[in-house]
């Protein structure tokens, strides 16, 4: 199917005898915004780590853009076009906000070692280009005034936004967001969701989103996968999911 951007087939991951993820089958079509939900410890972040090459699947195959990405290193997968954010923020904390974003342009910069140490050729042109692009991205995420600040000095919500800005700088086709709204207040969360919807259109992105906050996922995702104990127990549109008895039992249980 030409429309499939990411496809995982029978993926499982075993850590020392413990199955973190098993028989994982799912696909994401180009341009979709997909939610991945499930209770704590259901294997959501493990799924991200499998897609991004941090972990290697014990069995099964993951195809991106029609080609298998199993066995590739995380940086190679990023260069193929998958970028991510982290649940426990991993910014380059002693560097400025601007530098954080510039680093993510890393493999799009076209000058060599000699050009950089002797300041020749494309160095200045390229540096100007990425500076401009980085500032543009910061503007989208309302961080342009904080470009020179150290990342560690940003307020929490701004750090989360910076993580997304940084991931976008790698110019991905598929963006993986690991609980982007964790720790945000409802107002911030709402703004963030609008922003995610907007960047998807603006950058022509496909997005896979892990989220805890059900209402939020229901609001913007087109399709949802529900994980429990490392297995997909349900999938479908937000409306399907809401009425799925399995999901209500496993996830909504107390809340519904």
């Amino acid at each position: 199917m030409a429309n499939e951007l990411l496809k995982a087939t029978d993926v499982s991951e075993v850590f020392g005898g413990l199955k973190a993820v098993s028989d994982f089958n799912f696909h994401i079509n180009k341009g979709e915004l997909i939610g991945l939900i499930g209770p704590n410890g259901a294997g959501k972040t493990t799924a991200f780590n499998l897609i991004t090459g941090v972990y290697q699947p014990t069995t099964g195959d993951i195809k991106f853009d029609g080609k298998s990405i199993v066995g590739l290193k995380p940086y190679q997968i990023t260069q193929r076009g998958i970028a991510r954010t982290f649940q426990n923020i991993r910014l380059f904390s002693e560097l400025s906000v601007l530098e954080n974003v510039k680093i993510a342009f890393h493999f799009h910069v076209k000058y060599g070692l000699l050009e950089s140490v002797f300041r020749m050729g494309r160095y200045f042109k390229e540096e100007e280009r990425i500076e401009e692009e980085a500032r543009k991205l910061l503007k989208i995420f309302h961080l342009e005034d904080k470009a020179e600040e150290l990342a560690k000095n940003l307020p929490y919500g701004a750090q989360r936004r910076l993580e997304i800005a940084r991931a976008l700088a790698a110019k991905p086709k598929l963006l993986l967001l690991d609980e982007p709204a964790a720790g945000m207040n409802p107002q911030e969360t709402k703004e963030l969701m609008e922003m995610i919807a907007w960047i998807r259109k603006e950058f022509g992105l496909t997005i896979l989103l892990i989220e805890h906050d059900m209402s939020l996922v229901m609001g913007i995702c087109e399709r949802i996968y529900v994980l429990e104990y490392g297995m997909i127990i349900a999938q479908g549109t937000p409306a399907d999911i809401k009425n799925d008895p399995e999901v209500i039992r496993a996830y909504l249980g107390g809340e519904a």
Partner: protein
Amino acid sequence: MKYLRKNDCIMLGFAIVLFAVLQGLITGRVLSSFWQLNLLIVGINIIMAVSLNLINGYTGQFSLGHAGFMAVGAYVGIVLTTNFHLPFAVALLAGGVAAGFLGFLIGIPTLRLRGDYLAIATLGLGEIIRVVIMNIDYVGGAAGFKGIPHHTNFAWVFFLMLFALFFIKNFVNSNHGRACLAIRENEIAAESMGVNTTKFKVMAFTIGAAFAGVAGGLFAHCFYLVSPNSFTFMQSFNYLIMVVMGGLGSITGSIAGAFVVTFISAALASWPEFRMIIYALALILLMFYRPQGLFGYMEVTNMGIFRKIFKKGGRN
């Protein structure tokens, strides 16, 4: 960007004036031969410190074997000048290339290690290099290599030091350098931003080792005799101390650290035990009260005073 270029020009102008003054003091015999030698050693130590800073400070990899690479550069250099009568420049270059190549070979397997393990592995490698040299009769073994021509003079040291400083400064402020900084800050995030972390760690390690090799060549040609004992891990500690004292991740700091350490040891040379006791206490107190070193991550070109004096263009 223009601001950066302007800074370079200011620094270059400043360096040339400094060179003229110091060279004048040497030619006019104002400095005793003891201080002349120490001036050479300061320059060499600056190359050592700044190249180690690239590895330890900017890339965040803990190397404790820098003296080993210096030894390789020194011995390759002296063999080429003394036994093969090749020009000094060729010997220095060959020493740098040899040390860099060894750094590359060693770096690939060892840089997978982290933190303390890497520290102790590089320390061990530095010692292995020294022991191997000690067992090569061709270069005089443990007794040392005698009859080295006295090629190193202030101009060689100064301009190679300047080259090293600009090289590493430009490297750090580039896409390559940013990749190294990212590795230091968070290796997992760096990798997920598309940075081939192994490649850049090895690159920083190789460049650092190559400059240590050049510094070794300069060092060896200051003396008539060089022995493997000049390159023990105590020397590696010394360079580490210069870097930490000045600030991991600051070129200005490495210069200051090399300067302070070299001159304090020179000034206290007549009281060797006291020198080391003071040195030890200074080190401990520095870690207590200013663990980020004298300059932290700061560079002189980013400081208020510098900007006030030379400001016009502003940023960008």
